[in-house]
């Protein structure tokens, strides 16, 4: 965790209330997200820096982590809704049992975003990752835009932060974006139907 402090990572926040919306760090004060190379489920090496130019939601999770399972459907939704606007969800599994358990999970839960298999090196780069889920929002310059969510966060909170980074608010003002519907659904369940 000392490493997290050194990276300016620690917020230890975990709220589910839209009222607790957090402000993005100012551009000049943002720190670069440590780069890493991990493999995806096909064995292809993937670097975090490959996503430069995109807004990235970097989620450390595990198949055995209950609160992670609550967030994953949101991430599937975010990937579907915002991918065309230069947004990507990247999930890094911290399962010790590796692809043997992660691949069936990907299939069973129909994950539509990139999943990588984490290791201790990456764990240390990101502050030790003692608690899961831990999620970072990374801006288009590859920098941490917000302090991380350690533990289960709120869907609204993620939406607000993603919007502030990809500029969804402007799209919504201009008219007929599906993003408006999922935003409404997050605030008033059932509004999207």
């Amino acid at each position, binding site marked *: *965790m*000392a490493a*997290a*402090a050194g990276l*300016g990572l*620690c*917020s*230890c926040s*975990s709220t589910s209330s839209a009222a607790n919306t957090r402000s993005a760090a100012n551009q000049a004060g943002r720190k670069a997200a440590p780069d890493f190379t991990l493999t995806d489920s096909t064995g292809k090496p993937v670097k975090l820096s490959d996503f430069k130019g995109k807004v990235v939601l970097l989620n450390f999770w*595990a*198949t*055995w*982590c*209950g*609160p*992670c*399972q*609550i967030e994953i459907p949101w991430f599937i939704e975010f990937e579907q809704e915002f991918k065309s606007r230069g947004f990507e969800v990247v999930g890094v599994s*911290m399962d*010790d049992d590796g692809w043997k*358990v992660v691949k069936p*999970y990907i299939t069973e839960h129909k994950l539509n975003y990139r999943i990588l298999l984490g290791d201790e090196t990456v764990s240390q780069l990101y502050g*030790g*990752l*003692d*608690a*899961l*889920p831990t999620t970072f929002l990374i801006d288009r310059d590859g920098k941490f835009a917000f*302090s991380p969510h*350690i*533990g*289960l966060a709120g869907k609204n909170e993620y939406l607000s932060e993603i919007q502030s980074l990809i500029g969804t608010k402007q799209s919504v003002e201009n008219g007929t974006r599906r993003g408006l519907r999922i935003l409404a659904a997050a605030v008033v369940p059932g509004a999207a139907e």
Partner: protein
Amino acid sequence: MGRAAACVYWLPLLCPAQQNKLAVRPPQMVSIKQGGTAVESLRVEVLDGFHVNSDKPKDEFLIPLRLTWMGGPLEAKSISYPKPEEVKVGGDLLNVFTGAFDIKTEFHSPSTAPVGSAAMTGKLRYQACNSSMCFRPATIDIKVPVTIE
């Protein structure tokens, strides 16, 4: 105080630290006769606010609590875990252990086991969570002193 500064300042209090969420009381001595049986209770305590998966979690992806005896002069005939509690996390019902509970092991001493002092060694693997986060699986070494008569 800015948020970042507050975080660093309050780091030890606010951040989830890597520590055991579960403790095992030092086991009592097991006295057993050659060829006999004895039951050993391992007292386990889960920190307030946390739970660990039971020995039979409902979801195949969850990591069960598991006591495994690795070495020593006795044979572990059976291991009994308590009845789990059902708690709701998100939309799922989980079988978990909280608070203090006992794991009972029935040991059998072979008739050829050497008389005297020895120890049984084992490992207790668990995975703990609270209502908003989970902690990586951990293993505690167990050592039970044994006297064979």
